[in-house]
């Protein structure tokens, strides 16, 4: 029997990895398609990548651990400012180093946020996250010496990547750089979420009491995840600083946090694909309708969000996945 079990286990195992390979391939294809289909709009796609990293990072704590937060931009913004300040004030303009500094900044912010936010439960948790983002925002505003305050931190001019690839007007370098970062992060996260640690986190989301009754530390696990999430968001923030060359207070704002949450839910929480798809859908639609009607596009976006809840309650990816699953089951 035990042998049989491990045999039946294998196909599922392989299927999982096959699906991942397909997923990664799909991202690559989409990236290449984006490059050639919208060669004139790479800046938008680049911005999308930075936001995707933020939303992925949010998914780690919200989707996988069930921590409700409206303050996740604190991690993203800290990464952005860390990289930006390093470049503007300390002359560290090598892009990869900037990304690394951003990741560290994000991780630190993740640690602080995690320790504070995890103290609360339910709505109180939400409030803590709101408090955190406002404190970070206000701190950045106050430290205008370093951050430029509300005028923004300018004067970031990153070197060519690896000393070869210059950042250009069309944003090609930034785009390719972003895609490479995104793929790397995505693969690592994929491994993370299916690891025992990822499973533990999912358990915590569903019943923390049960997890502690298994002898695992809920708090410690979540804080670890928060730090990882900070790394990811920090990379996103730093990438944003590198590609935009300006860091604004908005990167540390409540609005930014809330928007990231909306994108995540739109795509479907608790799945990395959902995070990606949600971001693409939201940013793309926003760009489309706001270019078409810069004055009243908010109404249309609002209506679309409502429609998603009505017709795709599990988010775009979540609902699609359910439909495919049902089709498969029915097909058998």
């Amino acid at each position, binding site marked *: 029997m035990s042998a049989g079990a491990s045999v039946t286990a294998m196909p599922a195992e392989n299927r999982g990895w096959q699906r991942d390979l397909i997923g990664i391939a799909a991202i690559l294809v989409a990236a290449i398609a984006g490059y050639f289909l919208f060669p004139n709009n790479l800046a938008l796609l680049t911005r999308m990548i930075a936001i995707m990293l933020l939303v992925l990072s949010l998914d780690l704590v919200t989707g996988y651990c069930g921590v409700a937060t409206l303050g996740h931009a604190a991690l993203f913004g800290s990464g952005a400012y860390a990289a930006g300040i390093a470049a503007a004030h300390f002359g560290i303009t090598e892009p990869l180093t900037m990304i690394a500094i951003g990741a560290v900044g994000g991780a630190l912010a993740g640690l602080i946020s995690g320790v504070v936010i995890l103290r609360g439960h339910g709505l109180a948790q939400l409030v803590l996250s709101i408090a955190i983002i406002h404190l970070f925002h206000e701190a950045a505003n106050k430290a205008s010496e370093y951050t430029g305050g509300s005028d923004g931190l300018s004067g970031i001019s990153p070197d060519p990547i690896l000393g070869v690839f210059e950042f250009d007007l069309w*944003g090609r370098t930034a785009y390719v750089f972003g895609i490479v970062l995104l793929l790397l992060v995505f693969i690592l996260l994929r491994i993370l979420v299916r690891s025992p640690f990822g499973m533990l986190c999912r358990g915590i989301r569903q019943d923390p009491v049960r997890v502690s009754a298994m002898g695992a530390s809920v708090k410690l696990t979540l804080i670890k995840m928060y730090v990882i999430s900070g790394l990811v968001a920090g990379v996103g923030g730093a990438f944003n600083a590198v590609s935009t060359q300006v860091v604004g207070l*908005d990167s540390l704002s409540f609005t930014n946090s809330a928007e990231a949450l909306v994108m995540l839910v739109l795509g479907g929480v608790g799945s990395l694909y959902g995070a990606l798809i949600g971001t693409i859908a939201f940013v793309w639609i926003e760009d489309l309708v706001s270019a078409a009607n810069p004055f009243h596009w908010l109404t249309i976006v609002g209506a679309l969000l409502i429609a998603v809840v009505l017709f795709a309650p599990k988010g775009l990816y979540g609902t699609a996945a359910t439909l495919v699953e049902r089709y498969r089951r029915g097909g058998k």
Partner: protein
Amino acid sequence: EVIKIGVVGPFSGPFAIQGKNFKAGIDAYIATHGNKVGENTIEILYRDVPQADPAQSKALAQELVVKEGVQYLAGFYFTPDAMAVTPLLKQANVPMVIMNAATSAIVTKSPLVVRTSFTTWQTSAPMAKIARERGVEKAITVVSDYGPGVDAENAFKTTFEKEGGKVVESIRMPLSTNDFSPVMQRVRNSGAQAVFAFLPSGPTTLGFVKAYNENGLKQAGIQFLAPGDLTQESDLPVIGDAGLGILTTFHYSLAHNSPENKAFVAAAQKAIGNPAELSFPSVGAYDGMYVISKMIEATGGKQDAQKAVDAVKGLTWESPRGPVSIDPETRHITQNIYLREVSKGADGVYFNKEIKTFEKQPDPGLAAAK
């Protein structure tokens, strides 16, 4: 040939009214001057950045340049949004005409930036002189705690103290403040004869002015001084009688008495639909269009950013706000700053009545920064 101009501004969200004023100014210009400059036809493309967001601003500007092929970038309500775009200009060979963003330093970020609005330093500093003239010895400043607020505070304080007055206290309050009673209590306790205030135009100014009255500051004879952001025309009907008598210094009042302004206001009111919504960003946009048209003339419609900018250095003209010129060195607009008093017309409409003029004011902010 069609020449495209990309305008970035807040057309939705909390600052939608300011973006709407950009459009009104631009529409007014086109309505009065036509959409042709020589052989060339002007086409405007609007892009929305609802709140300060440099990344989005940059992405949109890049898209405008690369995809839409605009020859001019214009608009920019918020400083960071403008800052984010400056690094693009040279490579894109595109000049940028700032129609609002009011931090002095922007023009130093690229030689291709021209500004037709104002700076907070420019509009705030004269108020210190007024205060001194009116016998104020001790003043208190109250500003929103962010870039423009700090600019206003510094501008007033520096000038006021240079003129021999004393700023007894400087209060910076968070942008999100809704209830101003405690602040007013402090102002009262400070013993100052006048309060100099800066808040961004919009909903909070209402609460601020009301709190000034309700906490008895007006009765106590503490003068209310501010740059014109506090009494932008579209907020006046709401502030109502509470605002009467407030003194502000600013570059533009809708009530400015000149034929150019009458024509402009008529056209802009028509463009915006509801006349009550018109306010100062419209004039920055209108003059911005004028500057751009001069640039197009000078380059004959060819894309040559440096030539275009050089062509308007020193340009002088009669704007709806009064006589103005572009400082050849800073590329910022030199203009009159007016002292105005909130008044009520015979028709019951509130307006900013110009009562004194400071002529040909440059931007003192850049000098101060050096």
